[in-house]
């Protein structure tokens, strides 16, 4: 049941084959068993059970609120949740309990969804591994999958496993791992440079980044206001469409959401891709791309062509400038957005109180990790009067060029672009941390951040397993506000790809082994 798609569970709930409380309890139990994944910062057990009970009452009265009623969902810990600690995996907000719900959280709750917990992330969503938060790194569930172990010839010695586990990707690694390990049916992530799609690819789940302006950011603690969007992580494309249908639409509290009415849609079950034109951007064929991922990408292009779609090579000529451009604009906005964390109104406050200035300085030094502080310093540098024109304005102009690349390609008849999501499959944590956060982000964001720069919708679809038995995802990028078309193409592809289900048993064995280990220590 936990592996089922949203629709199926929803039907089961309506038919009484399972109750919301049972479902909730099973998820909670699985969360406990898979605690070593470190996907959750806060597990809202009491709230969830209460919400499940309410849902159950509604089902008994035959008054379910919709497809999400009674469904356990998880929310990345940078979304404000009323009465529930929201930390952004940072010391700065440890113990911070917001008095309001983010709009997207409220929408989920209004539909009867059961909030099962807040998920782990890189501190303030800065990173591509979910390794740089104060609660420790998130482990990719596939580290413990049968598929991975078989391929890697792993023996079952615990020490080996424990040190060779893989990163989940980031920064929404916790949400991706939560969905991937079946502890919830959908999760909210955030996506600023790829933070939903990257972990989705590494964890073998669907990661959707909607068009900027479609989904409200009110209550999403911002990283880059002009690029952030709430992201949706699910196990299949249909589920992503269902969740999008609940979340999308104008929010008066967010002036950057568009006013046009949004009509929730259901994806067709029969899809004919021969009427579509798929674009393959040649600039994305870069040296760092692993041969496996390249092969998967090629195979996918062939798949479309064989089905009658028009598959053509296109050019996004300013791709090579996008990382640097992104870095300037991102750090500038970060420097600005982090200015409010001064210890006065909420969050961490240092004990040093000789003067306001010294309190600010100590609070921010104690509250932020190196990654955050590094970006603040860079950002402030770029915003200095003497640098503003050279860096910030220049980057904005380059951003316009990058966005125009997509406009030009889409205007020439291309419906959807097909690209890799990441350079390769997930690497072991010990290898990942050899490079610093900035280097990793620059590498890992390469295929994903152009969609944030241009505001376009993009989705990562789990496609195939690598030679190591780990997920490889491919990305589709669509026209602005054309999520229906984008997800239709993605759904067709998902059907063709037939990506395997994560084999869970080994993970549970691992959990048992861990607990046995503990027992032996004490005996």
């Amino acid at each position: 049941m936990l592996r089922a798609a949203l629709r199926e569970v929803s039907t089961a709930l309506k038919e009484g084959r399972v109750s919301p409380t049972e479902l909730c309890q099973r998820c909670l139990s699985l969360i406990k068993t898979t605690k070593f994944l470190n996907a959750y910062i806060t597990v809202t057990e009491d709230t969830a059970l209460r919400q499940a009970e309410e849902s159950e009452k509604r089902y008994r009265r035959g008054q379910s609120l919709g497809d999400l009623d009674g469904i356990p969902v998880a929310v990345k810990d940078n979304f404000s949740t009323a009465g529930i600690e929201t930390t952004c995996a940072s010391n700065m907000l440890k113990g911070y309990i917001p008095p309001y719900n983010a709009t997207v959280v409220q929408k989920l709750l209004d539909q009867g969804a059961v909030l099962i917990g807040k998920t782990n992330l890189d501190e303030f969503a800065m990173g591509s591994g979910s390794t740089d938060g104060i609660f420790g790194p998130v482990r990719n569930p596939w580290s413990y999958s049968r598929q991975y172990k078989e391929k890697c010839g792993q023996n079952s010695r615990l020490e080996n496993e424990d040190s060779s586990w893989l990163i989940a990707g980031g920064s929404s690694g916790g949400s991706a791992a939560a969905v991937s390990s079946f502890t919830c049916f959908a999760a909210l992530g955030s996506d600023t440079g790829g933070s939903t799609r990257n972990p989705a690819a590494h964890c073998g789940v669907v990661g959707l980044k909607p068009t900027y302006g479609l989904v409200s950011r009110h209550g999403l603690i911002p990283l880059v206001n002009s690029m952030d969007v709430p992201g949706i992580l699910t196990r299949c494309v249909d589920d992503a469409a269902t969740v999008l249908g609940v979340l999308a639409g104008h929010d008066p509290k967010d002036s950057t959401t568009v006013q046009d009415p949004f009509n929730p849609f259901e994806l067709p079950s029969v899809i004919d891709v021969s009427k579509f034109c798929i674009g393959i951007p040649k600039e994305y064929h870069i040296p760092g791309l692993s041969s496996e991922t390249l092969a998967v990408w090629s195979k996918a292009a062939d798949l479309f062509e064989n089905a009658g779609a028009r598959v053509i090579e296109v050019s996004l000529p300013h791709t090579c400038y996008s990382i640097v451009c992104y870095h300037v604009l991102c750090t500038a906005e970060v420097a600005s957005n982090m200015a409010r964390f001064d210890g006065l109104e909420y969050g961490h406050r240092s004990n040093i109180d000789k003067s306001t200035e010294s309190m600010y300085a100590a609070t921010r030094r104690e509250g932020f990790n190196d990654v955050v502080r590094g970006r603040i310093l860079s950002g402030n540098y770029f915003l200095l009067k003497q640098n503003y024109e050279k860096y910030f304005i220049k980057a904005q102009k380059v951003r316009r060029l990058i966005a125009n690349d997509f406009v030009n390609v889409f205007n020439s008849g291309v419906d959807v672009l097909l690209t890799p999501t990441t350079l390769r499959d997930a690497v072991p944590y010990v290898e990942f941390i050899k490079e610093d956060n900035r280097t990793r982000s620059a590498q890992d964001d390469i295929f994903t951040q152009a969609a944030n720069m241009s505001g376009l919708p993009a989705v990562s679809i789990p496609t195939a397993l690598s030679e190591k038995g780990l997920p490889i995802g491919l990305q589709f990028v669509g026209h602005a506000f054309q999520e229906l078309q984008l997800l239709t193409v993605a759904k067709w592809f998902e059907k063709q790809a037939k990506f395997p289900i994560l084999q869970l048993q080994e993970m549970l064995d691992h959990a048992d082994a861990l607990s046995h280990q503990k027992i032996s220590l004490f005996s």
Partner: protein
Amino acid sequence: MHTNYMLFLLFFSVAPWRPVVGLEIHAQINSNSKIFSGSQVQFIAPPNSLVSFFDASLPGTLPVLNRRCVEAAVMTGLALSCSINKKSLFDRKHYFYADLPAGYQITQQRLPIAVNGNLSYTFCVGAKQSQLVTKNVRIKRIQLEQDSGKSLHNDARSQTLIDLNRAEGQLRVDANVSVHHPGEPYGVRTEVKNINSLRFLAKAVDYEIQRQIEELENGGTILNETRTFDYKLGCTIPMRDKEGKQDYRFMPEPNLPPLILYDAKSLPANIGDQQVVNIDWIQERLPDLPSVKRVRLVEQYGILPEHSFTLLNEDGLMEFFEDVVRETQMNPKKVIGWVISELLGHLKQYDLTVKESPVNSLSLADLLNLLERRVISSSAAKQVLKELCKGEGKTPLQMVKEKQLELIQNQSELDQICQAVMERHQEEVMEIKAGNRKVLNKLIGLVQRATERRADPILVKQILEKKLSQ
């Protein structure tokens, strides 16, 4: 033989100085809620009781522009003859201060809502304040921005208390001052802050101009600095906590799209007036500006221009005057004197505003009607008004009766009194009959004395003249 004389004329001249003053005026918009958050605006509320999540800069909150604030800015721009920018932008101005929770202020630095206006103003000069001088000041720009909170420093406990309500201090002014010689480029300017009244503004500016002139004439230089006005000492002093120049790191506010305003021409057909801010719609609904009102008052009532200024400078006085004119038969040219010289004089004495006047317009109109109908004399009316301003709540008629100020209208009564006076002052009568008309005033005066000034002087004169000619 020519001798060339070269005459060196050395003279020390003090080349004239021209000061340049720029005022930065922070005016709070009269609206029910704040500019970017939904929370209420209310004068004098308990500290931190009107603070929304956005005001407290809780993470994840976003600004939402208040329509009424935009309309107010457009109205102000139109009233000051500015060009209204149909597209204006919002920026973040960064600095750290306890009363600025987000670490930045949302303002309009790059492209404000209105620019290039002017305001002409007139003031009275001369011995009798009757000469009018008109001047013009340029309005460089009008911009919408967030107000900061209020901080109260408690030095005794080394504490600063912050109130994020932001409803106090409706008008604040900073003055920028520089001096230069005409024909030369502008001098370095200083900014003077902490000015909290118009009187001190004048003092601060005058002081600063003088200080700069003296400094420069002594060979010194002016620093581009911020100074604070010490109103006890009457001078400006450098502000110590500004170390070096502040770099505000301006950045576009990413959460607020450009503000687009429309006019009748640019308004798309399918959009209603309520969905957007329409400059022309606002223009049509602008109330008459003071200059227009003044012209109308002069034309309609025949009053002097300087009177029209007074009427508009006192809150509610114009309405008061017009109400009185409506209710009385007295010529407005005479009413104005009663309103400005008499009534306003008394109000100033008791430190009352027009709205607090113990004599309302109907009351004054009644009084003036009594005068017009010659029930009382002019001096009696003045006396009554003075009494009424004490605020005892009596009507003019009551006061007149109480003080027995009615003029004696009775012809035969007056006749008798005049006769009596004439009989007692035969000498004067003779003089008048001999041709000395001036003595008639003395007789009138004597009749007045006899009647305790209750005789209508015009009637008295008529009766006496008639008798004298017999």
